[in-house]
Structures are given as C-alpha cells and as structure tokens.
C-alpha cells in the first residue's frame, strides 16, 4: 500500500476585500502518495498556484486540514512551517529563483545551511555534487547563475530542491520561462527523478507536459473539476 505524503481535506482559501469575498480554492480534497507524479492543470486564475503555495506551506489555508506524512501541518507557526519546508519539501519555481550573488554550489547548498541539524561541510559538498550530477551540471559548480542558460538555471533549481532529500518536489510551471528544447530537458530530468522514486507535484498549463505526469488533477474556479485520473506507468 502506498504511503500518503500529502493529504488535503476540504482545503479552502478565500480573500476578503471591503466589498466582496473571493474564493480561490473550494473544498479541495487531494492525496499524493509516495512516488506519485501529479500534474495540476487548469486555466489561468483557477487556483493552481494558490493550491501549490498551500501545499508548500508558503501560504495558509482559510479552512480545512492539511497533513504531510500524516502530521497535521494546518496551523503551524511561521518557524515550524519553515522547518517542515526545509525537511520535507523541495521547491522549483517558474523563474528559477536562484540567488545571483551565490555560485551554483552555494545555491544548491542553501537548504542544507538552513537545516535544523546542519550537516558538516564535507557532507554538504558530497550531497551538492550528487544532486548536480543528477541534473548533469556538476561541471558548472563554480559558476554564477547569470553564466548559465535558462534551462541550466532550472536544472540547478532542481538540484537545490533535491539536496535536502525532501518527501516531495513541488514544481510551479517549470518550463514557463524556457525555450522548448530547454523545457524538454528539464521535463526529462523530472521524469527521471520520479522514476527513481521522487514524489512530484507539478503545476502546469501545458497539456503536453501535464500528460507526462501519471496523475492529472484538473482545476476550475478553485475546485477540482474531475477526480484524479491515473495513468498507468508503461
């Protein structure tokens, strides 16, 4: 039986202004198991990124309950949420969000430096190199992000997301800022990672890449349009 990594029960999110209340998410129920590769898709403004932010503890839900590896993380403090993000979640952003002043090595090592039990330098180095090898960029370890192409920068971002051995990778439009060739390369890396056992939840509006996932979740107006469709791995 698969282990549930993320469980969302009736998660809702609404924004209040003086005049109206906007529901960005409505009663989302979703479970992502160990080894899953889930693609969340839907039109612009349907709540994809909001859902991903709540799943990544970047934002808080207005209602419902949220579990990571069976632990209720709905009402964590900001610092507790930071610890969970660091240990359990790897983020990959559309615009890479690498830190320009830091080298590739330091960018990738960053999550380990914020780890509650900060590893020693040798362990950090070993782990960073392993991750960079996984994305095929170990030869660029000393470069600065602005010396890399967009595709390479996104692969460095993937290495950074992997470095702390997270329970799940949350990926937000990973190809949005890339040309098709680079996008294909990045998606290939993600596919390989999933095949190697990494759990991935990806937001994308590109049906071609959504099809690469084994589970597809369709969102419309803040609600899951259809039950997750599971693609059987070939």
């Amino acid at each position, binding site marked *: 039986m698969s282990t549930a990594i993320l469980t969302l029960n009736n998660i809702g999110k609404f924004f209040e202004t003086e005049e109206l209340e906007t529901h960005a998410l409505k009663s989302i129920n979703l479970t992502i198991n160990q080894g899953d590769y889930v693609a969340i898709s839907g039109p612009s403004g349907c709540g994809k990124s909001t859902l991903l*932010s709540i799943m990544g503890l970047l934002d*808080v839900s207005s209602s419902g309950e949220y579990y990571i590896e069976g632990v209720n993380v709905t009402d964590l403090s*900001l610092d507790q949420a930071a610890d969970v993000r*660091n240990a359990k979640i790897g983020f990959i952003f559309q*615009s890479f969000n690498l830190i320009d002043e830091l080298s590739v090595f330091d960018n990738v090592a960053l999550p380990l430096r914020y780890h509650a039990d900060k590893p020693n330098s040798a362990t950090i180095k070993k782990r960073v190199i392993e991750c960079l090898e996984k994305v095929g960029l170990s030869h660029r370890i000393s470069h600065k992000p602005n010396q890399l192409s967009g595709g390479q920068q996104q692969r460095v971002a993937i290495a950074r997301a992997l470095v702390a051995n997270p329970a799940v990778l949350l990926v937000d*439009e990973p190809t*949005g800022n890339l040309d098709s060739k680079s996008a294909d390369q990045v998606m290939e890396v993600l596919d390989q990672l999933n095949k190697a056992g990494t759990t991935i939840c990806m937001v994308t509006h590109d049906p071609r890449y959504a099809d690469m996932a084994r589970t597809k979740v369709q969102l419309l107006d803040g609600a899951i349009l259809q039950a997750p469709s599971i693609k059987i791995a070939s």
Partner: protein
Amino acid sequence: MNIYLIKQAYLSLKQKPIFVFSVVSTMGITLGALLCVLTLAYVMLIKPLPYPDQDRLYHVEHQLISNENAIDGRAFTYPNLMHLYNEQSLFEQSVLMYVDGGVITSLPSEPMVAISFITPQWFSLFSAKMAIGRGFEESEKVNSYNPVAVLTYEAWQDKFNGEANVLEKSLTLGGNSYLIIGVLAKSNIEAPLAGAGFKTELYLPWDYNSISERERKRWGNDDGGLIFVGKIKEEYTENSKQQNDQILTTLVSENWQNEVSGHAFFKGWSIALKTKSLKSFIISDGERSVYLLLIGALGLLFIACANIANLFVSRTVERQQQLAISAAVGASRAQLFRNVLAETGLLMFAAILLAQFVIFVGFSVLQYYLGNFLPRIDELELSAFSFSASILLLVLLTVVFSHLCLKMINYHALNSTLQSSGKGNGIQVSKRMRNILISSQIATATALVFINVVLYKDAIELVNQPLGYQTNNITSVVLALPNAESDLKAQKVTALKAELLAHPKVKNVSQAMRPTGFGTLALTAMTTDHRYTVLGKDIDDQYFNMLKQAIVEGENFSAADIKDDRSVMIVNDVFANKLAPNGSAIGFKFKNGVEVIGVVESINLPGTQRIESRFYYPASLARNMLLIEQHQGQIFNRDEMISAMKIVDKKLSLFSFITLDEYKDRRLFSSVTTAVTTLVLAILTLLLSGLGLYGILNYSSQMRRFEIGTRMAIGAKGKDIVQLVFKDNAGALGIGLAVSFIVLLVLYLGFSETLSAYISLDLLPLFILTLGAISLLSSLACYLPLRQFIKKPVIHSLKGSE
C-alpha cells in the same frame, strides 16, 4: 506641468501618508531652521543698517597703549572723549552716548529704566522718527544743561500707560526733574551701540550722564560705557582707514600726553583711535555666532537631504510598476520626468509651507532667547528675502530630488519590468552605493550625536554643579542713594538695615553685592614684591554666614573690622594656595598693609567651571548693596522693600531687586539653552539618521524581496533572514563607525587646545553609549523593513516573482 499631473501626483501621494509625513515634516522643519538662520545671516551680515548714509557711519575705539606697546584698555577716558567731540573735523555729525540705569522716583512703582545719555545729533544721525513731540536740538547741546527727556514708544506705553498728555509731564530721576518733550515712534530701530541686550527706554541729554564731576576730569580712567559714533565727511571717504585713524589719533594722543605729562606712571604711554564701520561694530562677535548657526543649519540640511534622498529612492522603486505602465503606453522620458517632478514639487511645496510656519516660530524663539546676545535680531521678519530664499530652495530641491529619481530610472529597461520577473531590473542602486549611503549615514550620525552628547554633558554638569553657597530665600538689592557725604549715606543704609531686620519676613541682612559680582584688583606681596591680579569684593561680617560659605582657616570679619574699615582680608582656598603653597596663608601681608586673616572655601559661579583666585575685604558702611535673607517660606517683595526704604528716607530709591535664584538662572541660561539645543539636535540627528537608514535598508530589502522569499521557501526562518541582513550590512556599519571615529580624532587633533576642556577619558562611556544608540538605531533600521517579509506567509514575498 498641467493640473492633471498635479492631481495624479496628489492622488498617488495620498496613498502613502507615512512617506509624505516623513518628507514634509523632515524637510519642513529643516528648511524652516535653515531659512531662519539664512534670514538672520542676511539681516546681520548683508542688509544695510536702517540709517541714512549708513556706509559713512563709524564707531571710534579709544585704545590706551602701555609703555610696553600693549593695549591696556579699549574704552574712552571722559576728557579724551570730550576733546575728540569738540575738536574733531573728520565727521560731519558726531554723537556721544553713555548708557546707565536709573529709577524713576516720580512714578508710584518707581520703575528701573535703561537710560541713554546722548548728544542732539543722535536723532538726525539715526534718522529717529517721533511718535509725538520732538527730539533733542540745539537747546540740548553739550553744556546747555536743559533737563528734558525723550521716551521710547515702549516706555511710553509701559511706564506712562500711553497717556496722550505725557508731553506735559515731568519725571524725576536721581533727584533731577526732566520735562518729557517727545516719544520715539514704534517703528524706530535703535542702533545697539551698547550691546545687543541693551534696550534704551529713556533718552536724556548728555550733560546729565551719571559720570561724577571728579571722573570727568580724570585723564587716566577709562569707562566702557562711553561711546562715540560719527558720520564721516564725504571728502574723507576716499582716505584709507589708517589715514583717518591717524588724523584722530594725532588729535587726541598729543593732547592727552600733554595732560598726563606730570604723571610718571604714564611715561611712554600713548593713545590710538581706531575707526570701524558702524555695521561691523554692531555685529562684532555676532558674526561668528551667525556663521556657526549657518554651518549647523546647513549640516542639518545635508543630513535631511541625504535621508530624504533615500526615501525618494525607496519611493521610486515602489513606483517602478506605475512608471513602466506609463512608458509602455507611450510616455516619453520627458513626460516621466514631469510626472516625477509633479510629485516631488508637491512634496517640496508642502515642506516649504510648513517651513514658513517654522520660520515664524523660529524668529520669535531667536528674538526671545538670543535678543540679548545677537544684534539686529529685532529686525527679523518674514520678508522679501525669506520669501525669495524659500522659492529658490523649493525650486532647487524639487529639481535635485526629481533628477535623482530620474537618474534611477532606466527608461529602456522599464518595459522589461512588465515582462519579466519584476526583480527591479528597471531601477537599481548598486550595492556599493547603498553601502556608501549606509556608511555615510552612520558616520555623520555617530559624529554629530557624540559631539552633541559631549556638549550636553558639559552643559548639564554646569547646570547641576554645586555652587558652594546658598541661593534660596536670598534677594540681592541695589539702592540708589541720593548724593550725599559718605557718612550720611552710611547712616541711611545702617538705618535701613535695622528697619529690614525688624521686618517679620526678614531673617538676616548683609551689606554686600551678590555672590557672583567681583571686581579685578592688583595686589603686591609685602615680602616678595610679587604682583597678583585677583578678583575681589567688599563684604560685611554677615556675608559668609548668610551664604553658608565655610571659613576653612582663620576667622571671619568681625563687626569691628567692618566698622573701623580695618586692613584685613579673607582669601579663597585657591588664592591661599598661591600665596602659601606649602603652608598657611594666614598672616600674609600685602604692600597696601592688608593682612590675610581667613581662608574661605571657593565657590563656583553659575555657568562656569573655572575657580579663580578671589579675596574679600571689608565693605564701607555706605555700600549701596544689600543681601536680604528671608525666613523659610516667606517672600519679601519689592513693594515691601520700597516701603521699608521710605520709612528711613523718602529720597531712597530702589535700583534693582533680584533674587539670587534669578541671578543663578540668568547665568545658567546659556548652559540650559545649550543642554536643550544639543539634546534636541542629538535626538533630531538620531531620528533623521534612523529615517535615512530605514530608507536605504527598506530599499535594499525591497530589492532582495524575491531572494528573501526564496530563502524562506527553502527553509530559512525569520531569524535566519535577520541574521543574513545584519551580516550583509555589518561591513557598511563598521566602516561608518570607523569613519566617525577618524572624524572625531581629526577634530580632536586639530582643535585639541580649544576642545581640551571637553575631552577626557570620562567621555569613553559616552562614546560607547553613542555607539550603542547608533547600533540600536541601525539594528531597528535593518529589522523593521524585514518585518513585512518575515512576519507574513512566504507567498507575500514571492508574489510577482512568477
């Protein structure tokens, strides 16, 4: 610039009340202070004197040159002054003036008034306007002895209740009756010939000046109250100053040398007369004060501008999106500039409006507090100059700040702001520039705060230092005694003392001047011929007991010492130590036959830390000064004093009646003002610097918003982010502190002589305190901008990054 732009700017600023408040209040107060000082500088240094042919008006200084060619005195002797007045041909008009105080005994309240004794041409020379009546004329010329008086407008209102028939009245002063012949107009501006603090209330003819007949004939005694001013003839204006000085010197010095030829003391001595333009004479030391104020105000403006520039930098970053949209829909660079100009102009206009209010208040404050120290301060008013300077500053600052904002905007990159991640690639202030701004803020703030704190400490120490004598319940009284023989005066004063001691409110009476008043006297030691120039005063046997000034060796004066005017003195411990460094000063004798019989503890004069050699000698029984000690909780007032005097003799009048606490407060005024000013300046500097640092660091944080968001997304906690920002700014902070230390060191090395009184190792805790305050301020400035990121879910920092 059109109304639409201004309206847009107004609406945009309405959304940012804290920014508007910071800019308007900072610039308004700073510009107000600067404009106040600029107007003061204009009035004192540039504005012509409000008198006809003011460039031909000169003051003449009388220098007594010793046989060692040193200037021994800078005041006229009476005969020399009269000789100059009568014989000179350099000036087409000349004025003699002598200032003094007196009591108008013909008025029920017997008010004390400030009097100027003048010659008739004073009225034409200073173009005096009359409210009613006339000024002095030929009928009041020197030696005419015509007893008439002219009142100032204020004296007419205050002392005579503005009575319309005042010209029919007489006033009595010093036993003489004077017919009031005129009142000066309210608009009349008195030339401050006797110093900034002296405001004449009553003008009397020169003949009645209070110099005794004996003194009027003494060629060797100079008097600082004697003033000569003249309007130089046209034909002499081409002469050099030296030529004119020589003409006057020759006239006076040769005559003087003939007159004193019989005095061996004056052998080899001479007189030199020096002319100085009246404007320079009136300004004298005030010029230095104005320049210091100007430097201070410009320094404040510099800090304010630096800080406001930082706020504008932050504001421009915030407006990046708005500017980008404007550019995208076709706004040219010039149009964007007009957009920025409208907003900046609106802010500066509001600041200038606030500044006008600050100027108005500032003028009142300057006139109230500095009226006694700086000349021409009464002429301060909102004028064409202050208005023009305001407009100039408004335009200048608007252009400077707009230009700064525009320089930050990379017009060609604005479009990508809309298209890309919004990481601020349209507007960037380099990290190096940010660090320079932080370091300069820290350096300026640390140096200024430390200097202000040092001055504050010094001033507060002066205010709080123990004086070594009692001031509570004691009033100092100066009597105006009628002209009479000394014995008769002594009888009157003795009778008055007895009358006062019989009063139920009076505990004790001492016949002496207030404790802060001393004269300078020369004493020559009997055995060594060593000459001492010492401060001395005459007192009676009750003085030390009343003031609780302890006799530490020997004895106090006895009643017999005073009554018989014995040749004895009491010295303070400082002088005793000079007289007998290794032994007792008791029994030490001087050539005038006076012997030291006691040593008294030194006192601190309010407002000064220097304790000088002083001695006390028996006062004459005819001395016209008294100290009156009241019983605890009792107040013996001026009216009760006058009543007591009238019981003794109706001709006795009261010259002054002031408590020792009031004297103390007057002497401490400068220290209190310094303490308040430096404290305000230190706080203002901290606030301004805090504002500036916040501006830079807020900008810096905005620049790093997505980086901070990313770090938090991958597990950084709030404290990690705070540590990161602190660590990143520590270098700039350290450089700022180091620069301030170097600046202070350079100041110390460059001005060690002047600053030696202020600088000691005791200042180390103050320096550490200053560093602590600046560090706290910097920490707050680092932390506060981060709160918007670390106290909210991470998504707030990451918004817009996708």
